[in-house]
């Protein structure tokens, strides 16, 4: 049985590894993290609007100038506001966004622990 699984997964992975190549580069990665401000819920990468085209060429220029990914995000956020970034920047006003889930998960864990530690065995009833 296990051998059978192994063969199937092996075949899948062989195909995987043979195809493993990407034409994607930094520019596309950046486009995908930017909101097209004139569209509804689209990224720069997905939009054909004039705005998206302009931003694409700005990004291309900045990448050519040797600017780092994060520097480009900061540059655009300064110009257009954080609204343009799909990854909310990690700063004071966004701390709730970034930390609250973990705090809640932790509290949930404590609650579970309390449930397990409570000792009133049902079997004695």
């Amino acid at each position, binding site marked *: 049985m296990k051998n059978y699984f192994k063969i199937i997964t092996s075949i899948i992975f062989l195909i*995987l590894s043979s195809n493993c*190549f990407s034409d*994607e580069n930094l520019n*596309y990665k950046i486009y995908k993290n930017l909101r097209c401000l004139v569209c509804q*819920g689209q990224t720069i990468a*997905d939009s*054909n609007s004039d705005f998206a085209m302009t931003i694409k060429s700005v990004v291309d220029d900045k990448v050519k100038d040797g600017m780092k990914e994060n520097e480009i995000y900061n540059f655009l956020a300064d110009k257009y506001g*954080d609204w343009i970034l799909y990854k909310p920047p990690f700063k004071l006003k966004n701390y709730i966004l970034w930390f609250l889930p973990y705090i809640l998960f932790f509290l949930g864990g404590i609650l579970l622990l309390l449930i397990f530690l409570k000792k009133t065995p049902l079997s004695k009833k």
Partner: protein
Amino acid sequence: MLSKIGILSTLISTILSFLLVYQSFSEVKSKNNIISKKFYYLSFYQLLFIIFSFLILLFGYIFSDFSLINVYENSHTTKPLFYKITGTWGNHEGSLLLWINIMVLFSFLFLVYKKNTEKKFKLFTLIFQNILILFFLIFLLTNSNPFSEIYPAPSQGMGLNPILQDPALGIHPPLLYLGFVSSSIYFSAALASLICRLEANVFAKFIKLWVVISWSFQTLGILVGSIWAYYELGWGGYWFWDPVENSSLMPWFLMTALFHSLLVLEKKNGLYAWVLILSILTFIMSVTGTFLVRSGILNSVHTFANDPSRGLFILIFLAFMISMSLIILFKYFPNEKNNFLFLSKESFVLFNNWFMIFFLTVVLIGTLYPLFLEVLSKEKVSVGPAYYNIVLAPFIVPFLFLMSYGPQSKWFSSKLVDVKKMFFIILLSFSLVFIFANFEKDSSFITTLILVFSIYLILQSFLDLYTSIKNNSFNLSRSISHLGFGMLIFFISTNNILSTESNFNLKVGETKKLTNYSIKFNNLKILKEKNYETLVGNFLITDIKNYKEENLKPEIRVYNQPKIVTYESSIKSKILSDTYLTMSNLAGSEFYSIRFQTKPFMNLIWISVLIISAGGFLRILRRENK
């Protein structure tokens, strides 16, 4: 004419709902144990008339009766028949009528299910369900009437948004509605059971079927929505963590937590209060999602139709529902002594709930935070896929492990499972990933772990399936759904790692050489269809390594009604990989902007979700046969 019949039929249904509530209140006091026949009649006619209203609207769409504003605004005579039909629920008013239809349908089904048992509980459920129905009927009749007339009747309609003219989107809303609108029935049942102080396991037996039904349809609905997004929106993705997508996912998390908890309720009468809370929350979350979508306060690809007055109406209703639930919960909160052994099956159900609620809060915070921030500080922030990936990905790993381990544990016992076997399978999964996956980019530590543990879950689920078949136990639903989930995570991750994309400009006759493919722009044709004109590009894609050729024909369509330009992607879908091409024109140039993508395992992602929901449907059938 149609307008008057439609309104009349809806009004009759409203009166019947009111009668049902009124009659139930007086019947509850009677000592008789059998629900009198009149309730079945009332409920049946209520269903009949509301279906009739829906058919009237459907009729209006099929025969393009533009004296109805709703038909005038959303249809057109040149639209193909299929889209005239699906257009019925492709707009706010029509979909609200469909919503009410489903609520009434489930009200009726619940009444006839397990006939002549627990009379008081059933009548109270009927009361709550019909209060909900009444509210939506009043909303429909006063604010969003699909039967409103326009005089004189225009000779032509305004047409349906072309991106909604799509087979997947035709069935997407009904499926999703069968999912989260049907959760109203266990919302009502939970409130009723609180008031009647129904026994825990009786309640579990009553609502399990409905929870599994809604969960299975919700899963399918989300799947069809993703498939639609994949080939219609033309960006090559299928999930963008868009607020509206999130609105369909949040009730799904709650439903999943709910039916896992129901197992504990059935087996050991535990978690009663929690199950009640989850039942109530699921429908509240569904209505909240609807509020976010219909009120238009969120910026999303889905904001096709919105109107603040609708939002206000739903918000008032939401406030009413929440306060009613809270009052009933506090007044009748059940006393129970829960006792959980660590590593017992029931403890794993708790772990499931822990993670589900965590996933829910992440999505909820991600969706709502921008709204709060904007109100409080006037600053706008976008929460996109990057946020969800960063926050959620690390938690997927332990979650996958628990999903594999949990089902093997025993009820009421903290005995460890066969640890040797477990380590062997995990080791096997590890070696598979390390031997065969030489991903060069993006294979971060967490991604690797996710791959390992999704393979572990897949292998373990297969083993579970094998043992249940060997033992002639046909309780396969759980293993099937877990298997589907393992596959889903595995294929999503590998798809994420292995997808490729190139953007470039081409003109007719030119060829673009990429590392593995060459793309030749053969020709360009203009075609005239019934309701649009289209520019079809013909591209020859050559797979250099495998000497394979295929033609892709992306389009740029100009629809006549309404005048909208859409970019249609061309996809060649194969079992292991899709090739995906979109083209768009560049103003004042003979060049076209081309986007070529290869997307491995797309079909397997869809199949994985189908397998997940298949587990649910199997459970429904098995219950029916019992």
